[in-house]
């Protein structure tokens, strides 16, 4: 039994509980508010509700712009996730294990999209694409391709961060041990490296998708007719009307992402990746 003065946690426990509760309330309050509002039977979002209805969900589904935005965001998320994995996983393997000149530089470059403000990066990328179009006549700005490149860049740092983290906690000699036991490099990857980094890769994929799905700033300049993402459709809609349709759309988005997290966590124990 440890003396009481060695367990400060005990005396802090009520304070800890209160602090945690406050933090959770701060995080959850806006989400709860949005979900609640989405069922209000008011034309303009106001308090208190006159009654409750599911009409706004039906209304949102009936508006093609929301449906199209949803589909565009879904497709973009999928492409961004795929690209960030194809580039990010091999890059992480080299960055975490390799010792070569310029390693720090490469790492910083790959992490750069995380530190440049989204709106700045979006504007810069848009100008680059315009210059490119002027020079070559090939239009990428305001097309799906342009958006896909931008979203892949947003997603990449997350994949690299998470996969690198999953590698750092692991004995770098695992692969060497497998090699000496007679495993060829491909077998080493399949049997040893991959099982070890899998939680990191899954977490990276999930984050890539979510980050791409909710991105607003970077996409602002890059969207065009027929290729508008859901967050931008929401912003555009908000400029003209403030009815609970928007809350319904947001609720669907929140539930979708939450479901993704829960399901993935169930199969891959994401906590191991952090």
């Amino acid at each position, binding site marked *: 039994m440890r003396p009481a003065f060695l367990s400060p946690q005990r005396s802090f426990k009520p304070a800890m509980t209160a602090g945690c509760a406050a933090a959770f309330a701060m995080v959850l309050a806006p989400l709860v508010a949005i979900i609640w509002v989405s069922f209000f039977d008011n034309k303009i979002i106001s308090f208190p509700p006159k009654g409750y209805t599911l009409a706004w969900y039906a209304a949102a589904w009936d508006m093609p712009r929301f449906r199209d935005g949803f589909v565009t965001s879904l497709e973009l998320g999928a492409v961004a996730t795929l690209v960030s994995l194809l580039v990010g996983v091999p890059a992480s393997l080299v960055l975490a294990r390799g010792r070569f000149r310029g390693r720090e530089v490469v790492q910083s470059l790959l992490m750069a999209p995380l530190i440049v403000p989204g709106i700045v990066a979006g504007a810069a990328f848009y100008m680059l694409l315009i210059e490119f179009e002027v020079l070559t006549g090939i239009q990428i700005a305001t097309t799906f391709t342009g958006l896909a490149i931008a979203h892949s860049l947003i997603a990449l740092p997350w994949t690299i961060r998470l996969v690198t983290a999953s590698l750092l906690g*692991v*004995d770098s*000699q*695992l692969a*060497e*041990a*497998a*090699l*000496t*036991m*007679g*495993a*060829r490099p491909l*077998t080493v990857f399949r*049997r*040893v490296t991959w*099982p*070890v980094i899998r939680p990191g890769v899954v977490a990276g994929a999930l984050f890539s998708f979510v980050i791409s799905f909710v991105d607003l700033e970077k996409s602002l300049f890059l969207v065009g007719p027929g290729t508008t993402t859901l967050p931008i459709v929401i912003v555009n809609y908000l400029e003209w009307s403030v009815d609970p349709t928007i809350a319904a759309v947001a609720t669907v988005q929140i539930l979708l992402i939450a479901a993704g997290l829960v399901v993935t966590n169930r199969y891959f124990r994401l906590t191991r990746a952090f």
Partner: protein
Amino acid sequence: MSQITLSHVSKRYGALTSVDDVSLEIRQGEFAAFLGPSGCGKTTTLRMIAGLTLASEGTIRFGSRDVTHLPPFLRNAGLVFQGYALFPHMSVAQNVAFGLEMRKVERAQAQARVMQALALVKLDHLADRLPRQLSGGQQQRVALARAIVYEPEVLLLDEPLSALDAKLRNEVRNDLRRLQSTLGLTTIFVTHDQDEALSVADRIVVMSAGKVEQIGTPREIYQRPATRFVAEFIGSTNLFPGRIEAGGRFVTAGGESFAMPREGRRDGASTFAVRPEQIRLTKGATGEGDGFGVPATVSGIVYRGALTEIVVQTASGAPLVAHLQNDGRDGEVRLEPGDVVVASWPAGAAMLF
């Protein structure tokens, strides 16, 4: 099991030479230790034998087979890492089975061999555990079982005991030695711990700065060190810089003159050395004792259990350390700081470098 031969093996990283022209032969069934301070190239040499590092020059043979340019997975060596490197997502049995699986050993037979190997290290009752559920000593034994189960041509151990506490280390060391001789494994053991090397190895390869300093049995290495480095690195040694005078005596920098043994005489030697346990201190005597000795004054006494360490100073002020066994056979030596003594040693104990 094979004989392992290295001829003129070097490893260079740019301008840096980490292993420099190493030639040695580990006989079939022999337990060899690579001993040296960190950075001496012992681990790099081991990695070159395993194939994890490629030699810049020279050839490496397993028996008559030249493996110099073979990748690790075609060499058939067993390697135990310092940190064990057990696969965290596989059970103990799966870890041990890995090498057999790579060799496409039929499942039932593989299983039998896995259990046999685990029984050898007394872990057959933990076959279904995950590595993280085992203690350090148990993980170490799993790593060992995993490296020997596929009957490699050579067993390579990279500081395998350094992560264990002192008591466990002795136990595992003895188990390792017993297992090695029962199975007749050609074994190379890398360590920076001289006690480990002396107690476990048939032969020791002492390395320093990428070069082999001496190869010999523990007895040879300790009693007849080939170089000053070996004499200093293994055990403790009293060293006197100086030179050989025309009269055939060794004169230290401080002016003491020592008689020299006939054997082991080296012209141009610049260091005279004698081990502390060889020194006898005689109180009240004068002169040189039995021809090999020097008058001195006791300056410090440190009781260390099995032995007493006595520091004396020669006339020139050079310190000399003597170890006296506290076994009561010589009678308890009653010395006080300030006592005048003669420090003497048998003729054969003097070493020159």
